[in-house]
Structure formats: C-alpha cells, structure tokens
C-alpha cells in the first residue's frame, strides 16, 4: 500500500467512486480518507452529486408506442421470407399507390429515379415480375448477402455499390440474396430484398444487352402479376446509371403513397 498525498488521492476520486481502481490503489485511497477529513468530505460530496446526476438522467424510458413498434418488428414464428401479411384490396386509384416499395429500394441503392408514366405489361417487365414471384416462392440458387458483392464482380457489375439494407423512410429494407438469371434473353443479376416483410426485387442489366429500353425507362404497372389471392398488382420501375439499367419490382401499397421519395 502507498501512502498518498491529498492531490494524489483526489486525482483518483472518480475512478475510486466508479470502483475501477485495483485493490492496492483502492486500499491506499481508503486509508488516506480515514485520516483526511477534507478529502473524505470531498469524496462524499462528489459521490452524492454523481448519484443525483445519474438519477436525473436515468429517468427517461422508452415510449410505449416505440416499444411496441420495436417488438412488433421482430419476426414471428414463421420464417420471415414465407410470411405474408393480410393485405387489403387496392383502392380505385391503385396506380397512385403502387410505386413506393420499388422507389424505396432504388433510393436505398443510391439511384436516381426517372420521371414515370404508365403502360401495360411489356415482355421484360412481365418476366421481371414472374422472376420476382419465383424468388419469393423459392430461394434456390440464391447467393447469401455476404457473397453478393463477389457475385456482382464476377458478373461484371462490380462498379455499382449495392445497398445491403437499412432504414428508408422508417421502413427496414434488407437484402436477402441475389442470383444470376436470364430475363427475356437479357442476362441480369436479380437482387432479392425484403421491405417490411414484403418481398421486392431489383434487376441489374446492361443497356447494351437489349435493343430498346423498356418503355423509355419509365415505370411500368403490370396487371395481374399477383402474389396473393387478391387481385394484387406489381409495379416495375426502371432507372439508369451509366451503362447499367435497373428494374425494381415490388408491391408497394403497404407503404405511404405520398412518400417523399416519389
């Protein structure tokens, strides 16, 4: 044990109060305090202040609505990818509602969205929705997220940074995996995402691999490409970055149609 002077003891004040000194130093400080009324009072008063500070700052608790949302976001008993939430029929102006999820995904990938219009089901969009549906039904051949970057590099798409997930507009977007596919004769990388338990897809392809841009890079609403029993619909959005063209597929009516992303 070391005999301490007052300034040495006070230099260890907080570590002593935090019980962070080793046994020898603790003993030295304790012995000093026994014989020094000034330091003892100082330690006691600092300890009392610290306790009062902590008590004041510990009062805050998680709001009940936030707690409920955090716990509700945890997956239930069924595997996440096969779980489907009950979804209502789309209202009359369904074309105004259907684009949000794909927009979320494109923005998550850091992409620029082009102005959109509407046409009905060109082949590439129909194939994209069919492939999207197939990926939801079966994950066969899906490369896990940690190997997606390698898959992209191997397929010549390595220059595009792909978002693996995160929160966009309060919605959790998560990359589930990817695979190489042939889409109406166009080689693509199919990225499978999940947004709020609803699947969504992004297809990467090269501009040079097809003759005409799908509908001049406009989003496409595909009728009848249903995932469920209801007469649901899927939308396909196209975007371009350099030589790459991206198509995003998702049924977005579970998201706010007035999304600022649109």
């Amino acid at each position, binding site marked *: 044990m070391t005999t301490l002077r007052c300034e040495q003891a006070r230099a260890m004040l*907080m*570590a002593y109060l*935090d019980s*962070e000194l080793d046994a020898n130093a603790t003993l030295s400080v304790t012995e000093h305090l026994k014989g020094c009324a000034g330091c003892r009072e100082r330690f006691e*008063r*600092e300890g*009392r*202040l*610290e306790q*009062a*500070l*902590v008590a*004041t*700052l*510990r*009062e*805050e*608790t*998680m*709001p009940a609505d*936030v*707690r409920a*949302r*955090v*716990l509700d*976001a*945890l*997956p*239930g*008993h069924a595997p996440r990818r096969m779980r489907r939430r009950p979804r209502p029929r789309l209202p009359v102006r369904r074309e105004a509602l259907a684009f949000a999820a794909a927009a979320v995904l494109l923005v998550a990938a850091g992409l620029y969205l082009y102005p959109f219009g509407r046409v009905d089901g060109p082949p590439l969009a129909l194939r994209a929705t069919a492939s999207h549906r197939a990926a939801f039904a079966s994950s066969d051949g899906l490369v896990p997220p940690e190997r997606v970057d390698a898959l992209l590099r191997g397929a010549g798409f390595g220059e595009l940074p792909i978002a693996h997930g*995160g*929160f966009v507009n*309060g919605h*959790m977007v998560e990359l589930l995996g990817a695979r190489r596919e042939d889409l109406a004769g166009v080689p693509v990388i199919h990225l499978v995402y999940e947004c709020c338990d609803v699947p969504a897809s992004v297809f990467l392809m090269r501009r040079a691999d097809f003759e005409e841009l799908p509908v001049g890079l406009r989003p496409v609403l595909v009728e009848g490409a249903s995932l469920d029993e209801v007469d649901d619909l899927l939308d396909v959005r196209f975007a371009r970055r350099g030589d790459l063209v991206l198509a995003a597929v998702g049924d977005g009516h579970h998201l706010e149609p007035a999304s600022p992303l649109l």
Partner: protein
Amino acid sequence: MADRRADFSALLEPELDALWRFAERMCWEGGTAEDCVQEAVLTAWRKFEAFSVGTNFRAWVFRILVNTIFNANNSLRRRLRVTDRGADLDLVAALEREEAYEHVLADPERVLSRVSDELRGAVKSLPQAERMVFLLRAIEGFSYREIADTLEIPMGTVMSHLFRARARLREFLADHVRESGSPRRVPS
C-alpha cells in the same frame, strides 16, 4: 423458433429503456433513435444464435447498438480516439476554486431539480465521443474495460473522455448556480 424468440425477448425487454435512452441521446434527428434501436434489435435477433446464453447480453446488445450508431456516423469512431488530457486537469482545477461549484456540491439534489431539462440538453451538447463514454459509464453502468472493448479504444482514452464529460457537466451546474445566485470565484 418460439423458444428462441421467447429467450431473446426475455433478455431484450429489460434493456429496451436503456437502449432507447442511449440512442436518443446519441442521435439528434427526429426518428433516428427509434430507427437505430430497431435496427440494432433486428441485428441482435439475427445474430442471436451466436450469443452464448449466460454471458453478458446487455454488453452484447449495446455493442450492436453502438456499431449501428457508428454506421450512421462515420466520423464518430475517429473522434473517439482523439483526446487532450492536458485540458482536463485545467478544467477540474478551475472548478475546485469555484464557489458556485461548492454550492452545487452542498446540495446537488436541489440544484438538479431546478435544471433537469437543461441538464439533458447539456448532456446532448457534450462532444459526441465524451457523451458516448459518459452515457455508457455513468448512466448505463458499464465498466471502463467493457467500454474500451465496445468502442475499441484504450482504457486511458475512456477515462479521459469520461473525465472531460463529467467536468463539463459540473461546469454547467456551476454556471447555473452562478447565473441564478451570487457565488463568486474563490481566490486561489
């Protein structure tokens, strides 16, 4: 699956207030704290199979939350590694000569009851690195070693940040007393 979910919830739910408190004070923008906690909780759930039951769940889930905050704030990790210990000692030495600070020490509960809202603001205005260490130690009760491991910084750096944060908050309290009363600086 159900058992695993129940185990996870049983461990998680007692920590939610602390996770929220920490995230809310480390994140500024509205909604960000909730996003951070939610993302951390989902990450913890996905990694839960790797968690060894019986080890420190609280430290484990806080480490995930801290990493989530790091991901949203790239410069924070670098700032945590920067300290200036010389200035710490000066701050404390100055406080020790403050009559106003003696008033704080004389009746801390009374002073704090008058400034509880402002104190929360003062905590949020601490430099981020100091704030993070202070919250982990003083409010959430982690040891210096646990904080050093979680933040991947040396123990001495933890102590330096903590010391500075505490000194700043004490200075804030002394300022409050000085502005609301008559205490003067004690001649040295």
